[in-house]
């Protein structure tokens, strides 16, 4: 077994080394953003919510490196504080989505039969609805809060994980080591937790990473439309709520800097997820169908 593994490693050595570099670089960038979020109070010179109308709509300068918005709030301070909400919502929503997907996929794949059939038809059904339409409907029914966004993203993005986990659980179920455990008379919960789950956890890890990038994009989209994070919290998407009006007056810095942060964060998370996937789960393609 070990010998077989080392031969495989040698063959894929070159690309694996390249992937390690990719993971390392994207992880470093990501840690940088986490650092910004964690030490926001020390990095921001101004209060992110305090309005100073006398300093409104100033272009980037030494005192305000990213300029100020229409209420005179410092864009740099808001970007720094916004990292907290954006990253938090992204990660938690991704965990919720993958948790739902993993549970449903595991049940469908392991138990099979009618249950599998019904669950997979539900997956197909939710997949047929445009995610944003569904999100808009859900968000319009609940109070605008961080919790409702997390739940809404979780409820609309679990299907791809469910399909992946299901097909993996399905193939694992018929492997000799699982059949042997069944023959020994092990309980179902024991087989699920000890034999099936450890073999699919890597799919869940990759899914969480890639889904985090997706959740950050979705949150920013909803907040931009005015259906996401409530106005008093500052997230990157939320900072862009008034962006369209600013743009029409040529005030580009209120859009550009939070937008840049979104792009850089999503880029580094996608790179990380892609790198992880290529090492852990080489059969899957990330950019197609998330």
């Amino acid at each position, binding site marked *: 077994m070990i010998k077989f593994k080392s031969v495989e490693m040698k063959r894929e050595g070159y690309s694996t080394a390249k992937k390690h570099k990719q993971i390392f670089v994207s992880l470093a960038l990501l840690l940088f953003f986490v650092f910004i979020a964690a030490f926001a109070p020390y990095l921001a010179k101004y209060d992110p919510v305090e309005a100073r109308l006398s300093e409104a709509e100033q272009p980037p300068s030494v005192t305000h490196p990213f300029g100020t918005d229409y209420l005179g709030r410092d864009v740099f301070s808001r970007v720094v504080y916004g990292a907290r909400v954006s990253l938090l919502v992204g990660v938690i929503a991704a965990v919720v989505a993958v948790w739902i997907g993993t549970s449903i996929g595991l049940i469908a794949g392991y138990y099979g039969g009618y249950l599998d059939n019904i669950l997979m038809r539900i997956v197909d*059904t939710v997949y047929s609805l445009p995610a*944003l339409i569904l999100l808009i409907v859900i968000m*319009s*029914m609940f109070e605008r809060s961080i919790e409702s966004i997390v739940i809404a993203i979780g409820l609309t993005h679990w299907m791809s994980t469910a399909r992946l986990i299901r097909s993996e659980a399905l193939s694992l179920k018929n492997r000799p080591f699982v059949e042997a455990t069944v023959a020994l008379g092990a309980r179902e919960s024991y087989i699920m937790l000890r034999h099936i789950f450890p073999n699919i956890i890597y799919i869940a890890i990759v899914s969480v990473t890639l889904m985090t990038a997706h959740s950050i994009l979705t949150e920013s989209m909803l907040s931009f439309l005015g259906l996401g994070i409530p106005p008093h919290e500052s997230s990157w998407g939320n900072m862009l709520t008034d962006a369209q009006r600013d743009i029409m007056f*040529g005030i580009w810095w209120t859009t550009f800097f939070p937008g840049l942060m979104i*792009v850089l964060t999503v*880029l580094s998370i996608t790179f990380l997820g892609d790198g992880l996937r290529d090492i852990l789960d080489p059969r899957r393609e990330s950019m197609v169908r998330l």
Partner: protein
Amino acid sequence: MEKNLGHYIFRRALQALPLFFGISILTFLIVYLSPIDPVIAYFGADVVLQMPEEDVAKVKQELGLDEPVYMQYFLWLKRVCQGDLGFSRTKHRPVLDVIVDRFPATLLLTVTGYSISVILGIIIGVLSAAKEGSLFDRLSLTLNYILYSTPSFLIALMAILIFVVWLGWLPPCRMTSVTVETSSLLFSMIDRIKHLVLPALVLGMSHLAIYATYIRSGMLESLHKDYIITARAKGLHEWTITHKHAFRNALLPFITQLGLSIPWLISGSVVIETIFAWPGIGRLAYDAALRADYTVLMGLTLFTGTLVIFGNLLADIAYAIVDPRVKYD
């Protein structure tokens, strides 16, 4: 052969039926579970408050709201099948009329955007696969990653900043100028195209990355197949090999992909239509959400879901016609 294909289409359509039911159940559940009183959702709070108690009770009975849940669903489904999606209290018109009115604008925008992304995606994907590892390939891969990580509204805002505010080349929003009614046919055509360019391009851009990557990996896969080696051994020109042998086979799975991306396209059009004040169903969804017009939201969920099912069905049928290897049973 022909008979088999007809059989296949029939079977595939039958498979779509449960999906229709699924979508209808989901749509019904959304409104059933929503915190809003169905009578208010139907007529609006201001109307209901002025109604006498008896009328409210009568309406409830007519809508079947006193019945158990499953009966309510079937009554609702019956009304839907008769084309009655309810009455929009913000638009003061039947929901179906509103959607049918708005849909052509969305169709124009999405089909244009779709064509742009598909054509550009194919060109970029084929070129970077043909020269794997070249500067162009690496550049387009990087660009694809950046495009993929950029939310479409950000692309839209930056495009407006550059082409509308700074350069002043294109109009910022809506489908036509206010003055278009009084102008000549040629002018109004140009006016329409000018209004279409920016939203369609932005919508196309947000899918370009996915298509280019998909075509590229498909091309690379088929370039390593045995029949390509055979073609090389025959001494065929490299152009013929990549563009005739490999490309055709890479295009096949792409057809399914095209069908699968319809939900993305509709999601994208919600954002783009909102930004550009484009009078389509995406903008309608946004307005309905802000004003809590649930009958419109319900109608749109049902309508877009049906659209997606039809799209996937068409893609599968197209695949079966194009690819002779598909077994019909």
